[in-house]
């Protein structure tokens, strides 16, 4: 038989409650029966006493024998108190213990009042005593004492108490059996969760709980399953991240090693070839530097260490600065960059430097994947938000790839990644920076037609008031 702590605590709590209820209700029932029997017995004795007094008052010669006969039937003892204060037993009866008769009761009886009280002898037997005056016309001559033994009632009550205790024990055992089942059933799911979290702590995040109910425990089970799924996703992403990072770092380093070795061993035929190799080494080192910078930014962002310098900024200025920086690249590919700004544009709260980085990443991507046509930067504002879009007439992104393009190191053109360049972290950084500044990123693309990245910055109340023309 296994004992679990939660089941034990639950069972003990219910059992303690059960004991309190049983004891208090047992005491109440005991008092109820005791009082009921006492009251009934007193009523009966009073009634018998009233009958005897009536018989005695008739002063008939046969009344004494009648009283004696009735007393025998009723199991009571009768004593006669004369007007001189003498106590007489009924004829034919032995001398009785008369210690219960007190002077003050005798006085009360002679003055015409009834008395009633309980008495206990040295053996612990209880008696109920009723004294009633016998009226002869208007005067009180003598009185009667009726003594009724309470032994039968006490025996019955004792038996009743024993049975009540037996019932209490029965109810306790019944409750114990049921509590055992209920505490096991109720704590079972909690124990399963505890085992599941233990399994998770050992690194097995594939395990899931079977959650059937929709109550609080069921919700806790769902939360644990969600937590396990998140941890599993986190581990998978981390693995993929490290795998990608090592791959991305290894490739330029291999290039650098290879070409540097060729140059060092003097395996070049001409100065042109040498210059070409040096150019590759330079490009790869620049790429490596970009990659390291992006990784550094991304890791700082994920650790929450990056702090934005939030200020009111004019997006038009940011756009113009960014476009100026990539203009040369675009001209080299014979692409035109157009700016379309729909005034008035309100000031936006954000980090000027990061916003420029976002725009540069998007523009560089647009130029990189566009061979012919143009790149359009459009800025519009509605009542609710400022919308910045960067569109190109490039190769486009397949629809099924769109959900993944913001993931780290995800590349649409995997086979031609080196040809296009880039670190694979640009869009991931764009998304994170935009979200940190309270915006959202959307993308729309059509293969062979082009791609549009839309950044939406919802206006704050203050932002709306601070509009510029």
């Amino acid at each position, binding site marked *: *038989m296994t004992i679990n702590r939660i089941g034990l605590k639950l069972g003990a709590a219910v059992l303690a409650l059960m004991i309190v209820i049983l004891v208090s209700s047992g005491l109440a029932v005991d008092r109820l029966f005791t009082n009921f029997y006492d009251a009934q017995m007193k009523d009966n004795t009073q009634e018998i006493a009233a009958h005897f007094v009536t018989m005695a008052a008739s002063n008939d010669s046969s009344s004494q024998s009648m009283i004696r006969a009735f007393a025998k039937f009723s199991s009571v003892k009768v004593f006669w108190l004369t007007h001189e204060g003498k106590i007489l037993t009924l004829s034919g009866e032995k001398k009785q213990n008369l210690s219960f008769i007190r002077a003050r009761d005798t006085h009360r009886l002679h003055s015409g009042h009834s008395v009633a009280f309980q008495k206990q002898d040295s053996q612990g037997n209880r008696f109920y005593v009723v004294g009633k005056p016998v009226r002869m016309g208007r005067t009180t001559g003598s009185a009667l004492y009726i003594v009724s033994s309470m032994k039968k009632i006490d025996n019955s009550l004792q038996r009743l108490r024993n049975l009540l205790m037996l*019932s209490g024990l029965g109810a306790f*055992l019944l409750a114990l*059996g049921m509590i055992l089942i209920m505490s*096991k059933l109720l704590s*079972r799911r909690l124990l399963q969760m505890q085992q599941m979290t233990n399994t998770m702590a050992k690194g097995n995040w594939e395990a899931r709980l079977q959650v059937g109910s929709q109550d609080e425990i069921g919700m806790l089970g769902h939360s644990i399953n969600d937590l396990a799924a998140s941890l599993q996703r986190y581990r998978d992403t981390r693995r993929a991240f490290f795998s990608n990072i090592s791959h991305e770092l290894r490739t330029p380093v291999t290039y650098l090693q290879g070409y540097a070795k060729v140059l060092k061993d003097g395996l070049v035929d001409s100065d042109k070839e040498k210059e070409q190799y040096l150019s590759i080494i330079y490009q790869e080192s620049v790429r490596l530097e970009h990659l390291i910078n992006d990784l550094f930014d991304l890791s700082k962002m994920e650790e929450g260490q990056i702090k934005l310098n939030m200020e009111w900024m004019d997006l038009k200025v940011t756009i113009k600065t960014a476009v100026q920086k990539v203009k040369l690249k675009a001209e080299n590919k014979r692409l035109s960059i157009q700016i379309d700004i729909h005034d008035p544009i309100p000031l936006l709260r954000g980090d000027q430097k990061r916003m420029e980085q976002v725009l540069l990443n998007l523009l560089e991507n647009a130029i990189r994947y566009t061979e012919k046509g143009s790149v359009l930067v459009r800025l519009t504002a509605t009542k609710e938000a400022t919308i910045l879009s960067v569109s190109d007439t490039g190769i486009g992104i397949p629809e099924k790839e769109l959900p993944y393009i913001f993931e780290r190191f995800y590349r649409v053109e995997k086979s031609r990644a080196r040809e296009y360049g880039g670190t694979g972290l640009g869009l991931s950084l764009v998304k994170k920076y935009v979200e940190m500044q309270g915006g959202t990123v959307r993308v729309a693309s059509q293969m062979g037609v082009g791609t549009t990245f839309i950044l939406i910055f919802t206006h704050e109340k203050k932002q709306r008031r601070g509009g510029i023309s």
Partner: protein
Amino acid sequence: MKKIDWFFSILLIIMGLTCLLFSANAFGHESFLAFGRTLFKVCMWAACPAILFGILYVWFHYRNKG
């Protein structure tokens, strides 16, 4: 729940019921027939809330599903 848990629980329940029925059959009804009759009555009375609870549970279950 293991078999031994069920065994102990049912044993305790039977012991409890026996004590209760014994005290209920006291004062002149100490026969096996009276014992069985009282047990039947108790079971019937216990079944009433159990059936009611079952009906309510099924009703709520299907209502929430619907």
